[in-house]
């Protein structure tokens, strides 16, 4: 008798990449960089199937380093490699990378001005019922407070590719905040962009939503629904949280009624906090509302249930925005 799984609905970890084609963007972008002559080294801490680096490991085995479950060792080792001329990308869950490895990132990477690329995946509450240990709702705030470290949060796989391409010419270290490879596509091809320059996808006189990373897609849907309902609602894809595009925020503040920031993160210290700092510096009167996780630990549930609960899906963001427009 063979008891092996027979149903197409059954699956196991090593099939994750095949089941989640969006994971390929990360490996593909790094392979492109190698083809362009960048001395890429990719490393992970026992998560090569979760972040899709399994593909990179297969196609560029001599440029792949498996660290096992030793995240802090991985970050410091990456700093050592960068000090010797390599261009290391190291990836693990955002919770472990930004929180567990915080001091290694500050001292060995950022203070040392080494061009390490830190890729925190499954950010926010996207690990659902894995619980608080696996949630990263503080990483933007922590990484943003580290001097010399750029912080980017691509909104889909194509934008991740653009940001990895842009990183080639960025001298300092970068923290990439990404999801779980299941982001709906926003950009059909890798968009033209610049680190530190937000993308104004639409303009709005009544309200401008500023979103980053995973919240750009649902915010886009919400803005479109509100526009169809007769409101004038714009959207900025703020893929770089640091250095923040203060010029764009200043500009928008002068031509929109209100600003709503939306992030899969604590409302303290992340995108909303960063925008608040810029608005405080301006001293203008535009009203800012910060939407995200309200300084609490998330419940557990499947991720989509959590997005609904915390009003981070399109319907929830639309509801929050309607409350501001009424």
């Amino acid at each position: 008798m063979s008891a092996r799984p027979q149903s197409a609905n059954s699956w196991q970890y090593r099939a994750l990449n095949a089941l989640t084609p969006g994971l390929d963007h990360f490996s593909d972008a790094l392979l492109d960089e190698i083809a362009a002559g960048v001395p890429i080294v990719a490393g992970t801490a026992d998560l090569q199937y979760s972040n899709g680096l399994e593909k990179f490991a297969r196609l560029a085995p001599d440029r792949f380093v498996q660290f096992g479950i030793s995240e802090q060792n991985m970050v410091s080792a990456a700093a050592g490699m960068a000090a010797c001329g390599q261009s290391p990308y190291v990836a693990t869950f955002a919770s472990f990378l930004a929180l567990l490895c915080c001091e290694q990132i500050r001292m060995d990477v950022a203070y040392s001005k080494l061009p390490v690329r830190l890729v925190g995946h499954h950010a926010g509450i996207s690990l659902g019922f894995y619980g608080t240990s696996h949630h990263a709702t503080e990483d933007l705030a922590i990484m943003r407070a580290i001097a010399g470290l750029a912080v980017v949060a691509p909104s889909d796989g194509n934008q991740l590719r653009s940001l990895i391409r842009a990183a080639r010419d960025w001298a300092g270290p970068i923290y990439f905040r990404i999801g779980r490879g299941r982001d709906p596509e926003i950009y059909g091809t890798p968009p033209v962009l610049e680190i530190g320059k937000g993308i104004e996808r639409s303009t709005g006189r009544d309200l401008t939503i500023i979103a980053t990373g995973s919240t750009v897609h649902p915010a886009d849907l919400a803005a479109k629904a509100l526009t169809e309902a007769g409101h004038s609602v714009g959207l900025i894809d703020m893929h770089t949280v640091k250095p923040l595009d203060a010029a764009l925020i200043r500009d928008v503040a002068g031509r929109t009624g209100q600003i709503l920031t939306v992030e899969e993160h604590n409302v303290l210290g992340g995108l909303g906090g960063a925008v608040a700092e810029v608005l405080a510096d301006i001293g203008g009167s535009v009203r800012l509302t910060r939407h995200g996780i309200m300084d609490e630990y998330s419940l557990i549930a499947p991720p989509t249930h959590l997005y609904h609960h915390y009003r981070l899906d399109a319907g929830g963001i639309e509801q929050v925005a309607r409350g501001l427009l009424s």
Partner: protein
Amino acid sequence: MTTATTPHATPALSADTRFAPDAERVRLLKDRARFSRLETVRLIEIAKVGHYTSAFSAAELFSVLYYDAMRLSDDPNWADRDRFMMGKGHAAVGLFPILADLGYFGRDILDGYTRLGNPLGDHPDMTKVPGIDFSSGSIGHALSAGCGMALSARMQGQDYVTYVMIGDGELQEGQVWEAALFGAHYGLSNLVGIIDRNGYQLDGAVDDVIGVEPIVDKWQAFGWEVHVVDGHDVTALATLFRALRADAARTRPAMVVARTVKGKGVSYMETDPGWHLGYLDPGDAERAIAEINAMEA
């Protein structure tokens, strides 16, 4: 199998017949290990994803700890209870049914595993789940927390034992070795570590990812009393834990290296390491349940 390379230490305390459980207890312990596996399959059906194999390798350990070794009461907050925590928190799906069976929370909570707002998720949470002595999820913290509990018992004149289960992949975390130094330095004889040596982690065989052998030599060199045992032999496990508790002369922490099989009980999971994480749809789950039920009683 990688675990076969872990040598046995001598003398084998786990074979000391003075501490052996009787036949009735052995039957109970096997039955509760089976119960843990069956419930693991049922709960993962609710979540649609889970760590079958990590829970299966620890099923006998859970059973022996909670139905024989540990000093517990009906009150999960009893101050003098033995403590248990696991660095490999992702095996919690196999422990939650046991805590419910012990009456620490209701069946309705168990049946809401991973649903919105339920206390039971993929990892154990001491703030939400009665009977969970310490939260985990980020690999590598548990042995340090256990050191703190064991030292606290001594400082407060309490005689509970602290048990900490860690994964073999977890040995790759630096903090584990800080705790190893600490536990030996303070002579924490009321601390029992357990390594679930199932040989596999997410990305492959532990010895291929980042090798951890020789485990026994390492822990001995760090000053721990090391015992190697078959982690699926409930008689040997119960004997060993009883003997360790009875040994008032020990002045060091003990480390139990439990040689286990990842996915124990479901044939293809035992041979295919990709099952660290996965999902069986109901038809496949039924076939897995049949295999678990066919395990030796």
